[in-house]
């Protein structure tokens, strides 16, 4: 952190916390088998951001976040509604909401950019993310929301575990699955909307999906997976942000994604859980054992 400006340090801190929150919520999304939901919702947030801007007329992050949250929630509800009341499947419903909301967002964005002062508002940054364009109050807002999400995820750890892995039992204990689901959607939306300024609507889903899958390669325990996923997400946030400051006008989002993916490849190869290398080594030693059993003709050795 030494050598960076005061503002840059704050930005770095906020992407760290954002990455951690995204990693944690992403872990929940992974076990809900809803990884791509985050992709739809982050695209669906775009029109809300623009409408938020149109309402107040200046770039004010809290208003735009509120707009994004409303439009992402609307997207989530619509996906539920389409899936629940027609025969259109979930993936198609997600695709529809994603593309139609994003298209509407672009339509509004072009409209606003044409108006006076619109093009200077930096609204374009919401598409690919530009962490460097954040000012101190933005950083504060982002950090506070991400921290809140992180706290909820950790405080209700036991409840999440029950809800995800044995919803029937959870119901029996009096834990409302419906309420847990609602809290989960709110957390997901919050992380997405505070993240889009730094990472952009298109890349936000990567930060939610990739760290969780990477963590899966290092552990079998849900608790550790949550912790590792948070660490990997935070790490990707920091490395990506630092890399993107090396060039002028480089977008932050793609670099954060690249950092996360690099770590995913490392996990895929060397992860002790199910990594390719470990699996290969185990197969190799098994084969050797079998061969030796075959040669000596005794199973005693193998049984041990």
């Amino acid at each position, binding site marked *: 952190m030494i050598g960076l400006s005061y503002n840059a340090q704050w930005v770095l801190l906020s992407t760290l916390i954002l990455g951690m929150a995204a990693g944690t919520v992403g872990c929940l999304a992974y076990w809900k088998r809803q*990884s791509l939901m985050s992709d739809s919702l982050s695209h669906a947030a775009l029109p809300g951001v623009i409408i938020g801007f149109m309402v107040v007329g200046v770039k004010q992050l809290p208003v735009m976040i509120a707009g994004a949250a409303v439009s992402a929630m609307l997207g989530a509800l619509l996906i539920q509604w389409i899936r629940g009341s*027609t025969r259109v499947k979930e993936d198609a419903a997600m695709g529809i909401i994603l*593309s139609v909301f*994003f298209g509407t*967002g672009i339509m*509004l964005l*072009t409209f606003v950019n044409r108006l006076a002062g619109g093009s200077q508002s930096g609204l374009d940054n919401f598409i690919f993310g530009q962490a460097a364009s954040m000012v101190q109050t933005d950083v504060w807002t982002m950090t506070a929301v991400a921290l809140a999400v992180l706290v909820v995820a950790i405080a209700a750890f036991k409840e999440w575990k029950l809800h995800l892995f044995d919803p029937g039992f959870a119901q029996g204990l009096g834990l409302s699955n419906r309420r847990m689901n609602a809290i989960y959607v709110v957390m997901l939306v919050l992380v997405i909307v505070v993240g889009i300024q730094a990472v952009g609507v298109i890349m936000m*889903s990567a930060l939610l999906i990739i760290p969780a*899958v990477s963590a899966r390669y290092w552990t079998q325990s849900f608790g550790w997976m949550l912790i590792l996923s948070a660490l990997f997400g935070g790490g990707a946030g920091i490395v990506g942000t630092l890399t993107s400051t090396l060039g002028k006008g480089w*977008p932050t989002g793609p670099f954060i994604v690249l950092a996360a993916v690099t770590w995913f490849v490392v996990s895929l190869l060397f992860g002790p859980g199910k990594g390719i290398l470990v699996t290969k080594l185990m197969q190799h030693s098994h084969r050797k054992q079998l061969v030796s059993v075959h040669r000596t003709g005794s199973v005693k050795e193998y049984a041990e």
Partner: protein
Amino acid sequence: MSYEGWILLTASLVGLTCGLIGVLLILRRMAMMADAISHTVLLGIVVAYLVTRELSGVHMLIGAVAAGLLTAILVQWIHNLGVQQEASIGIVFTALFAIGVILVATKVGNAHLDVKHTLMGEITFIPWERIELPWVGSIPEAVFMLTLVLLVVLLALAGFYKEWKITSFDPALAASLGIPVLFMHYLFMALVSVTSVAAFDAVGAIMVVAMLITPAAAAYLWTDRLIVMFVLSAVFGVLSAILGYYIAYWLDTSISGSMAFATGLVFAVGFLFSPKYGVLAKSIRPVKDRGDSPKVAD
């Protein structure tokens, strides 16, 4: 033809081609795969540009098909390693797309490629970029490409109509009949990539998704017959393209964004008013008739 006429023709060709491909995407439940491929063709185009240093239609097509197939193969490979299908799609497409964006932003940013263009398309430039063809005369390059792709798609769909039907509705039966299911899968992925890249120039990466999925999903609500679904989806595609153009003209805003918005309108009409699967029809029908819907059959 007039400037406006060319734009409308381009948009309609996009709607038509995407509408046809979309039907199979919906029936094979691969909507999100289309989302993935439409993003990753960016990488294919950028790499093709870096290798050949020119932005020609053929190179872009080859690059895009390669990127699309790479996406399909990687998704399958990671899925086979024990990652959920959804998560594996999410990883692969964000990764390849990020690499594409970084290449554009750092290396070729000053050239003709720019990220905003590829994402949102620039249909207004299309009538200016013309090529000379024998017999036909001078037509916009995009129209030529789209026509070509439309012909390929039509040929592939009509030529293997029975195979598409069986592999989409009952892959197990198809396999037992000796139809190469895996080959059909990758052929389909190649078709999706070709369609995406041809439509890319006109409507951009994300609006391709709207054109691919939404008209087909709307058609799915109106009919149970496959052939009718193809026709309806193509009609809805063209309808949204034209409607989108006029909305954009009226509001003076992004044409591709308005087209995506228009596909949403078309879907909303089906969603609410379709006589069999619409929300309204369901709510006024007696409860005992609301059984599970039969699948599309022909």
